[in-house]
Each structure stands twice: as structure tokens, then as C-alpha cells.
């Protein structure tokens, strides 16, 4: 099991131990507060993820074969999701990020806290991260 999968299992465990969808949402908001802030000068139009109902900015970098990313959003819940994705992907080999199979959202009820448009938006965020990793 690579490190991404190991972190993913850990996160799934954390969420499965929570109560109903309110508790899961509340936990995501707690996590949102832990996401390192993206400096305002990095919130540029090029860093906006297209297709998201919320504003989402991703600052992605390839550093010596390692994937690095920071992100921000105008909604806390998306920031919480960015925190989860950052915990899994940031600092991991680019090839591992590109090949990772994300089951976190299927195996927990996180997606139920979103309405359909935001669910799609999260899909775009994941695609954007993995495409960058595959192309670098």
C-alpha cells in the first residue's frame, strides 16, 4: 500500500467514526481552519478551477518529482475537502498522485453534505490535481 492509500484509509476511518451528515460537515469545517492560507496574490484567474460553483483556487507545483499543492475556497466545506486532498497528495511522488484511486468520497458520506453542483465541482478539483500530476 503506498502512502496515499494509507492516508486515505486513515481519513475514511476518521469520517466513519462520525455521526450524521451534520457532524461530518462540522468536522470538515474544523479541518478547513487547518488548511494553510493561500496568499491573496496567488488567487489569480489562472488558478481558479473551472466548473466549480464555489470559487476554488489551486496552486500546484512539481518539485523534483514530488507533487505540491495549496488551495483555497470561498466556502469552508470546500476548504475542508481541500485539506483532505492536501493531506493525501501534497508531498507525494507525481506518478503516485496521477495513479491514485480516490475512494474517500464513496466510502464515506462526505458527498451527501454537498448538493449536486458542488459534488461535480469536487470532481473537477480532483481531476485538475491528478491531470497536473500526470502532465509533470
Amino acid at each position, binding site marked *: 500500500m503506498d502512502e496515499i492509500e494509507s492516508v486515505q484509509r486513515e481519513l475514511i476511518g476518521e469520517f466513519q467514526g462520525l455521526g450524521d451528515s451534520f457532524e461530518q460537515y*462540522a468536522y470538515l469545517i474544523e479541518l478547513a481552519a487547518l488548511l494553510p492560507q493561500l496568499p491573496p496574490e496567488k488567487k489569480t484567474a489562472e488558478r481558479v478551477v473551472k466548473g466549480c460553483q464555489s470559487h476554488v483556487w489551486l496552486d500546484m507545483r512539481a518539485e523534483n518529482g514530488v507533487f505540491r499543492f495549496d488551495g483555497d475556497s470561498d466556502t469552508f466545506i470546500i476548504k475542508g475537502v481541500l485539506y483532505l486532498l492536501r493531506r493525501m497528495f501534497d508531498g507525494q511522488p507525481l506518478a503516485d498522485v496521477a495513479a491514485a484511486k480516490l475512494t474517500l468520497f464513496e466510502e464515506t458520506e462526505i458527498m451527501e453534505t454537498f*448538493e449536486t453542483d458542488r459534488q461535480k465541482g469536487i470532481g473537477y478539483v480532483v481531476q485538475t490535481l491528478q491531470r497536473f500530476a500526470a502532465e509533470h
Partner: protein
Amino acid sequence: MTDFGRIRGDFPLLSRRVHGRPLIYLDNAATTQLPEPVLRAVEEQYRQWQANIHRGVHWLSEQSTARVESVRRTVADFLGAAESAEIIFTSGATESVNLVARAASESLLREGDTVAATVMEHHSNLIPWQEACRRSGARLRLIPLTPCGELDMEAAERVFSERPKLLAVTAVSNVLGTVNPIARLTKAAHDAGALVFVDAAQQMRHGRVDVRKWDCDFLCFSGHKMLAPTGIGVLYGKRELLERLPPVAFGGGMVEEVTEYRADWDVLPFRFEAGTRNIAGIIGLGAAIGYIRSIGGEAVYGREAELLRQTEAVLRERPYLKILGTPGERAGAVTFNIRGLPAYDAARLLDQLGVAVRSGHHCAQPLLRALGLESAVRVSPAFYNTEEELCTLGAALDRVAALPGIRHG
């Protein structure tokens, strides 16, 4: 005294549960729920009377036509219109505004003319006028707000001094709930030579609409904000003005005679009703008006006002909230933000607790921007809500606001 507890039982959807909790539906400024008599009327239309109108000579078509025209008379009477020919059925307030704005751009408006609107308009009573100005070369002037969220009447005077051709104004703000002085605005606009188009979408459950008392030239509303189905709305216009407007949608049902290369328009109101109308929606609208009348309009308006007062009280007790606007008269909705929590998250968290409210820019971006905001949370009760539901809203807000990770500073 009206038993609103019993009346609530007429709305089957209100007994639903969401996310395992009882639904508390407080998004009535967007769409109201349908009472049994409206649901039955719509079903009955499809089960017993379904036929196209105005075209058939057969019995069912005649019956269906008579039922639709009966609703037209009901609406005319409900609005205080002089005659039913002044009532045009549309798909909703948005189509009504578009109809008049498009027709005005092709007839009333010329390059260099002024059209007046307000900063608090819903996009549906703003964008059609922006487009009408773009097409005709007219200029759009917006009346700004005072700090408390009312229309700045001194600024309005300055806009009127430009002698606009038309004023487009909402009767009630869908965000702040501000009740605008329509009769006063209409008088001032008329004195300046302007026609007046009133968006009454947010007005219909909160107070009597009397187009002759207001003396407005056009007025629109949507059925789905007053217990009727979605997809049905009304445009009212004074006959002499409707006669001057060209139709903007063409097809069956709106013509007197068609030859190979031209067509003569039908009489009012049919020349503005191209194609088959939403017949079941019209029947539903008639039933909705009948239902409101069976309770008593004044009782409904009074209950709405009382519940809004209580909503405001619940919100004001909570120092972590910032309520938008302090208008002298408010109807229908109160909008706020939880300090330190984006509106989307607040509304979504409340939803997880069974409380349905709206968040976002509420299709009023110029207004939100004037307030220095991108989005906010709106609570809009209706007469079928209860005091207990408002207490639960307060408790749900407390639970959300107390979450770790939110800094109210």
C-alpha cells in the same frame, strides 16, 4: 380567528422529513408549497378537462377554455384590473418583464431615452431592461439605496428629473424585504412622464395588490410564490398601453388571420399568448387565489407579518448574526450572515438540521455588491410556518454558530 394550525394540515409536503429530521421550510420567497385544493385542481384539470383551448369546437375544449377564462377574470378581480383583457398569462414574472421590455425596446424607447430602475431589483427585473436599453440605445439609471436599505427618494427625484420613459421597480425587495412606496413612486414617475412597471413577485402574499390604487401601468407576478404551481405567471397592463405594444412572440393562438407573407394580430390579451399556455398552471393559479380568499387575504397578510416579526426577533437575539438592512417596513424575508461563516456553509449546515433556507446572491448581485457582500442567508417564512419552527431555527443557528473552526470576530 383563523386556525393556522389547521391550515398547515392542507400542505402535505410540510410533513416531510429531510436528513432524518422534520422539514422546516423557510424558503418561501423562492417558492411556496401547494395546498390540497391547488393540487386537486391541477390533477382534476388533467384527469377531467385536458384539451387545448381557444381552438377546438368540441365540448372538452370549450369547457377547458371557459375554465381558463374564468381564472383570467379571477386574476383581474384579484389585482383590481379594469377588465380581464388586461391579464396576460405568462410562464412567470421573468417572462412578463421580458415581454414588456422587449416590446418597449421596439416601440416606446428611442436612442437617448432614459429607463429608470433600482439597485434592489431582482435580476429578472433588471437584465431585461439592460437589454432593452442596449437594443434601443436608451440609458439605464438605477436609484440607489439609503444605508438602512430603503430606496433613496432624493436620488429618485434626480433620476426622475431626467424624464425617464419608464420606471421598473419591485414592490418588495427579495433580499432585504424592504416594502417600497409604490403609489408614491408611481405618482412621481408619472409626473415625470414615465410609465411604471411593478414587479410584485414578492408582494403577493404580504399585502393587497390594487393596480388601480397604485395606478401602475404594468405589473407582474409568479404563481409559485403564492401557492400555485411553477411555470405560471401573470402580466397586467393597462389596455391602452398593451394596445400600443407589439407582440414579441409569434405562433399559434395570437393571430386574427395569416396569409403567406404576413399576419394580423388577435385582440388583447391573446396577441401576447403565442402557443399553448400552461393550462393546468392557470387552473392551479385560480385555485391558489381561491384558497387565499377562503382563508381571507387580510388574515394571510397579518399572519405573514407576524411570523416575519418573530423571525426578526429570533435573529436579533443572536449577536453572532449580521442582519442586512433596517427598512421601516419589511415583508417576506430577512437576510443575514453568520459572522465568520460563508453563507453557503451556513445554509448547508442548517439544511443538515432540516431547516431549508436560501443562500447566495439571491439574483440581486447589484444589491449585494452595494452592501459590500457576495452572498447572504435568507429566511422567508409563510403563513403556514409556526412559532415553534422559528424557535427551532434559532436553536439550529446556535448549533451552527458554536461549531469549532468558526471565528465570529
